[in-house]
């Protein structure tokens, strides 16, 4: 071997790896490049995410605030409500007229507008269309208001709200502006007097949908989403896990199970609207379940989520080392005991991850719900699984379609709530996974 260094290399000689030279530099450069590509990829993805969330937050944050104005209202006297004398009943309070006191208060505030019919209409338009109902609610909460003059804060209309939030530009010619110069003057007068205030928009989270932007909230859609996802989870999780456990642990490996496996994988790639059609045909037409109901929506989404859960659960079960199964079998555990005592608990983190991915998908799904009538304008808050309901993504779609300027910010706000819902769900999954996680 010593003479290999001196004599020209013959094929039989031992060749050792060359540790210097250009190929080494090339190797280092390739590694550096590869790492750089990875970094660039992550940076790009992060930038896109930032852009997306940034633009939504920028558009939507103002929807969490609602402008209120202070006004002195003369509440109706007890006698007008109850001519017989004595305390008015709740029914009488509800049926009483609050629009006139409200309008009187506005006219009192700006007497110069009171004489002209057109100006009066503009004046009445300063406050939100539901303002008189807000007065009613105040009386219901505090009956001592009756017959008194009191300063109250009420919501302004969506246009004034937009003006207060700076969405309406003052330098635009009056004819092209939603708010004319007179209204602008009134607003500025109130603002200077400290009678305009932005408050947290509680109604956004406590109201159902409405044609009036200031009255519209996402509570109905949120409840609809929660109810729908509850059904989805309750149906798809047990069925999915059972199917996965059977296929992975008990089913004989033959052509039939191969066919089933291929079909499950294919189902995961079926466009979601097809599941909607299936739901329409089976759940609505055949079983006669109610339209627009979270029950049906949940069932349809469960069908869509099943393949995702089954695939994730199977791979989680596969990842449990066979030595654990052997150990339990060797001790005389029955196959069912092996699965329930050892394999399933160990696979649970993976199964939960898959389930959450499936649920997140279901949460954002609109297309299948289209077919079963969950794309509808529904004002009432759904109270049960068979009440008509809509879901968050559908609500976003409906609002995005609305012409009012005030719905733009509400659309973004609803998206933020949807994203928040997702984050909460994922956090829950991570928490559960941490609890179940065991090392082996």
């Amino acid at each position: 071997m010593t003479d290999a260094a001196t004599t020209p290399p013959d094929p039989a000689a031992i060749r050792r790896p060359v540790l210097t030279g250009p190929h080494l530099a090339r190797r280092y450069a390739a590694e550096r490049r590869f790492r750089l590509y990875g970094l660039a990829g992550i940076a790009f993805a992060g930038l896109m995410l930032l852009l997306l969330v940034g633009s939504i937050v920028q558009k939507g944050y103002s929807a969490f605030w609602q402008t209120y104005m202070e006004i002195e209202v003369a509440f109706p006297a007890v006698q007008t409500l109850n001519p017989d004398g004595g305390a008015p009943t709740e029914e009488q309070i509800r049926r009483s007229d609050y629009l006139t006191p409200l309008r009187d208060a506005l006219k009192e505030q700006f007497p110069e507008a009171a004489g002209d019919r057109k100006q009066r209409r503009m004046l009445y338009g300063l406050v939100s269309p539901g303002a008189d109902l807000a007065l009613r609610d105040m009386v219901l909460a505090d009956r001592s208001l009756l017959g008194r003059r009191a300063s109250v804060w009420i919501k302004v209309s969506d246009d004034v709200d937009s003006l207060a939030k700076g969405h309406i530009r003052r330098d635009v010619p009056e004819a092209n502006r939603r708010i004319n110069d007179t209204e602008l003057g009134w607003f500025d007068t109130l603002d200077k007097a400290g009678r305009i205030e932005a408050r947290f928009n509680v109604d956004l989270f406590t109201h159902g949908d409405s044609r009036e932007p200031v009255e519209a909230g996402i509570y109905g859609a949120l409840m609809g989403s929660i109810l729908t996802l509850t059904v989805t989870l309750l149906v798809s999780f047990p069925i999915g896990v059972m199917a996965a456990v059977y296929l992975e642990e008990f089913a004989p490996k033959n052509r039939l199970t191969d066919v089933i496996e291929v079909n499950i994988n294919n189902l995961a790639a079926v466009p979601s609207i097809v599941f909607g059609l299936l739901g329409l045909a089976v759940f609505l037409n055949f079983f006669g379940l109610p339209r627009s109901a979270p029950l049906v929506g949940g069932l349809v989404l469960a069908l869509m989520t099943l393949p995702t859960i089954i695939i994730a659960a199977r791979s989680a079960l596969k990842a449990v080392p066979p030595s654990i199964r052997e150990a339990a079998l060797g001790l005389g555990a029955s196959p069912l005991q092996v699965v329930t005592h050892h394999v399933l608990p160990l696979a649970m983190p993976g199964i939960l991850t898959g389930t959450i991915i499936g649920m997140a998908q279901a949460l954002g799904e609109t297309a299948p719900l289209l077919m079963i009538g969950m794309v509808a304008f529904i004002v009432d808050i759904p109270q049960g699984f068979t009440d008509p309901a809509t879901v968050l993504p559908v609500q976003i779609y409906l609002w995005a379609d609305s012409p009012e300027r005030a719905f733009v910010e509400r659309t973004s706000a609803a998206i933020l709530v949807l994203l928040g819902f997702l984050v909460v769900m994922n956090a829950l999954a991570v928490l559960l996974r941490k609890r179940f996680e065991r090392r082996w």
Partner: protein
Amino acid sequence: MSDATQVATPAAGAPKAEATGASTVAPGAQAAPAAVKIVARDVNVFYGEKHALKHVDLDINENEVTALIGPSGCGKSTFLRCLNRMNDVIDICRVTGSITLDGSDVYDPSLDVVQLRARVGMVFQKPNPFPKSIYDNVAYGPRIHGIARSKSELDAIVHHSLERAGLIKEVHDRLDQPGTGLSGGQQQRLCIARAIAVNPEVILMDEPCSALDPIATAKIEELIDELRENFTIVIVTHSMQQAARVSQRTAFFHLGDLVEVGDTEQIFTNPRDSRTQGYITGRFG
């Protein structure tokens, strides 16, 4: 599972008379006074098309350590796994011939495999404690077989099993710690404790020391020697020294054939077959 309690007493009154005559089949076996626990006759194992074990006849004596040796892929582990039907788990595996445990057929379709495995315990090549506490690892078998009637009884079983496995001194103050946190040798002894907690009659060991260092190996070997009093042990090993140290009888497998079986001393000093001779002297394998 209620009738599982009867397995709790190890090898109590095992029928011995019928089995003694059968031991003559093993070539070269001396007329040992030991009772025969397991009788294998004409055992063939196929993995799909592959004929992994060919016409094996082997007797395993009670309260003795029987070592199965041979080069890799010779079928010794396969044979071991036939004894408690662990091969059932493998879809393509097919077993023919007969294996009887105390005279009853192990492959009888009416036999409950779960009961069989409670009588024939197993320790695997790689320590495989459950990802649970040390206590739960040992208590698992007694729990599923309903051996302990109360918590204190279960405690006693766990304690006693760990003691017999020589592990109690090292773990008595951390029974609630995960079994996976122990060292390799401790894990393997935990697995042995887990196996003997259900008081099987036979313990199968599939290369129990192959993943351990010499000191841990020595401990396990010592343990095997002690366990012999109460259990019948079949051990697969790659180390001929180990076979010589721990076993009373040795069977040499080669390419799926049982080449030779006999007293360990005889196999290692005076093998009859040239292949055995070649293997134990290190010429191949």
